């Protein structure tokens, strides 16, 4: 066993119950250099890193999500535990460091006990000794070490000596030869009860009270050594946070705050990003000779890149807010507050976090649903997540609202929150309907339960929040970026080629003089003629041929082939819609406008060539908003849903139900609005 491992770099895994100071210790040991392994689901991400140089240890340190026991009860925990026993890439751990909150000793010790029984070589790091000291107690480390016959030490991240001793222990353990055979522990209820009794005995023999405070705490000592009452400040705050009226009020304010922040805070930043990219694009076109290279660079690549970056501010803001809610301890309260209403429609309080993450991106949200133990509730949560208005829809809504309500920022913000609300209401309705017919759609019966630790309220640790925000946002750029740029280039190719024949065929529907003139003269400095030649180019392009094929299903919606092609591209990612429209309506950069303004201007003039009808009118734009609110248009989400539910049934149902109803609803809205005279 040992020889087989000798080539492998040594691995230390850091494990611990939630809120046991695990992440703080990880950051301390590894510094700023780390990388995230696995997909960054809100709960399944974990970091792996080397020790910082000054620690003189050459091995990998793996962080892992908090768990309370080695017996998994949700898919989320199963992944963590499977990776602990044997990580597919990094193998078996040589040493496991398990963190235990001293003031939570009797609960947190269960995990350490199970690890010892499984045969892991463990170092027990006791954290938060100061909190225990405030209660008037301390842990006799030497005695605990003697009982367990394993390494036990106090770790206060602020004390250099503590870390030094920890490192010394790690080194000693790494040097020793060791069998990497770990057995899975099997605890039945009886064993669990016995273990807790044993832990109780250990607790009594290692936790002592400090003489000076002895009298005050004798009463608590008699019941459980470390007392049963949690942090008094937390209980006081909860009196308000979980209050029947104030609690609900604060919950609604918090949720409202999240969505307005996404819009209000991000708007100026997005404007800035847009400006930067239009300037780069301008720079390219004015410095390169006109032709396909300049066009590919400015419209295909830079335009596509701009489409990715423009809503990065929103994603960052959303992750910061989610991080704040989680780190202060409020997220668990939110889940608790809405558990009962959600349970009525077949969901769970634990659906709260995945649904909230769905406003950023459906992919981490679907992964976050792994924390839901009940399979049916988990599948139902995954099913409705795409209806949460994800950040990819924001640029689309931003464009459509700017068209509908030009210059009216306050009203736009209000309408945007209504769109969000529409998404929430639809998702809850869908969940309710599916729950009613649950036996025919999601055929799983499982025990529905809600048990969740409510962490102590604390001041958020901004360094952790920023770290997570950075990881998630960067992951987004890495994942969405290449797809968007690829589609941008592909679409550019399809709209730019074939090279128009200067004296050749007439193009569909457009035969006025200016077009003929531009055909004859080819490239023209005159911008009007340039636009016309652009129009001619695009209406003979490959994209047009595809678009015209699907035009019959677009016309009932009041849209033409160009919007149809743009809608097809949204299956790569919804946000591509904006850059597709820009490409397909050939927004050539004018000097004093940014990309968005010139796109809005050409949208105003766009007409369906066969009928001469305007494409973007009040009715079609409102219809498009509803279309985007409902349609299932994201291949990545479908793929992750398939993976998480183990089949195509749910994702296919999503496409049929959501995209089908999106088409139907848009058709009804456009025609109803036109019927009552709103064009």
């Amino acid at each position, binding site marked *: 066993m040992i020889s087989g491992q000798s080539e492998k770099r040594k691995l230390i895994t850091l494990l611990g119950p939630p809120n046991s100071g695990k992440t703080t210790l990880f950051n301390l040991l590894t510094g700023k250099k780390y990388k995230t392994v696995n997909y960054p689901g809100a709960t399944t991400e974990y970091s792996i890193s080397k020790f910082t140089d000054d620690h003189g240890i050459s091995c990998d340190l793996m962080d892992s999500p908090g768990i309370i026991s080695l017996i998994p009860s949700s898919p989320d925990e199963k992944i963590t535990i499977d990776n602990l026993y044997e990580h597919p890439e990094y193998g078996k751990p040589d040493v496991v460091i398990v963190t235990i909150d001293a003031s939570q000793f009797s609960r947190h010790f269960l995990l350490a006990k199970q690890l010892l029984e499984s045969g892991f070589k463990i170092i027990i790091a006791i954290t938060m000794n100061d909190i225990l000291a405030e209660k008037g107690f301390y842990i006799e480390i030497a005695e605990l070490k003697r009982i367990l016959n394993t390494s036990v030490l106090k770790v206060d991240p602020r004390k250099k000596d503590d870390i030094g001793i920890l490192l010394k222990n790690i080194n000693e353990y790494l040097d020793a030869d060791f069998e990497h055979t770990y057995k899975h522990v099997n605890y039945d*209820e009886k064993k669990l009860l016995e273990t807790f009794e044993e832990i109780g005995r250990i607790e009594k023999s290692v936790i002592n009270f400090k003489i000076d405070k002895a009298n005050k705490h004798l009463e608590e000592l008699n019941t459980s050594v470390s007392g*049963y009452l949690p942090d008094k400040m937390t209980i006081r705050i909860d009196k308000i946070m979980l209050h*029947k009226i104030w609690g609900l009020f604060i919950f609604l304010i918090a949720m409202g705050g999240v969505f307005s922040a996404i819009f209000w805070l991000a708007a100026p930043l997005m404007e800035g990003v847009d400006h930067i990219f239009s300037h780069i694009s301008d720079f390219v076109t004015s410095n390169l000779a006109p032709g396909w290279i300049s066009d590919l660079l400015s419209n295909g690549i830079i335009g596509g890149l701009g489409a990715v970056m423009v809503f990065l501010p929103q994603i960052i803001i959303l992750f910061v807010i989610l991080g704040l809610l989680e780190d202060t301890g409020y997220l668990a309260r939110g889940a608790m507050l809405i558990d009962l209403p959600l349970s009525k429609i077949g969901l769970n309080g634990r659906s709260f976090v995945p649904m909230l993450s769905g406003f950023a991106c459906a992919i981490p949200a679907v992964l976050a649903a792994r924390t839901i133990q009940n399979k049916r509730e988990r599948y139902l949560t995954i099913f409705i997540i795409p209806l949460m208005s994800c950040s990819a829809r924001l640029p689309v809504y931003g464009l459509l609202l700017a068209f509908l309500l030009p210059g009216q920022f306050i009203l736009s913000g209000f309408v945007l929150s209504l769109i969000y609300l529409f998404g929430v209401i639809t998702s809850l309705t869908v969940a309710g309907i599916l729950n009613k017919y649950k036996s025919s759609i999601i055929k799983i019966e499982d025990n529905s339960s809600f048990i969740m630790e*409510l962490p102590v309220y604390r001041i958020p640790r901004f360094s952790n929040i920023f770290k997570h925000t950075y990881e998630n946002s960067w992951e987004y750029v890495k994942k969405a970026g290449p797809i968007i740029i690829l589609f941008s280039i592909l679409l550019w190719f399809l709209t730019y080629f074939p090279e128009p024949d200067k004296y050749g065929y007439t193009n569909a529907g457009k035969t006025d003089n200016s077009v003929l003139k531009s055909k004859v003269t080819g490239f023209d400095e005159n911008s009007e003629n340039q636009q016309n030649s652009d129009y001619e180019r695009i209406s003979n392009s490959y994209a047009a041929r595809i678009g015209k094929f699907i035009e019959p299903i677009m016309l009932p919606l009041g849209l033409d082939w160009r919007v149809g092609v743009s809608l097809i591209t949204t299956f790569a990612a919804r946000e591509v819609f904006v850059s597709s429209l820009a490409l397909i309506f050939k927004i050539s950069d004018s000097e004093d406008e940014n990309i968005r303004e010139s796109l809005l201007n050409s949208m105003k003039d766009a007409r369906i060539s066969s009928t001469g009808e305007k494409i973007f009118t009040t009715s079609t734009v409102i219809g498009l908003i509803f279309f985007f609110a409902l349609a299932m248009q994201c291949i990545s989400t479908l793929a992750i849903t398939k993976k998480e539910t183990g089949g195509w049934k749910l994702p296919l149902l999503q496409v049929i139900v959501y995209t089908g109803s999106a088409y139907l609803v848009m058709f009804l809205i456009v025609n109803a609005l036109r019927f009552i005279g709103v064009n």
Partner: protein
Amino acid sequence: MTIADLETGDKAIIIKVNLNHPSSYRILEYGFTPGQNIEIVNKSIFNDPIAVSLRGTLIAIRKNDAKCIEVEKN
């Protein structure tokens, strides 16, 4: 009587956990074991789930799950 029957502010001691309940295993893992002192600290807006203090921490638990924890009121 079970935890689900208690009112906010009530203190009690756990007598036993009904092992026939499907959530009993998880409940034990969270540390709801016989002999432990608990207190109902809060209830959610709709009176369910409830917040129970146990072993120095707060646990939110649905009444349907809590009803398998038998207690004696102090």
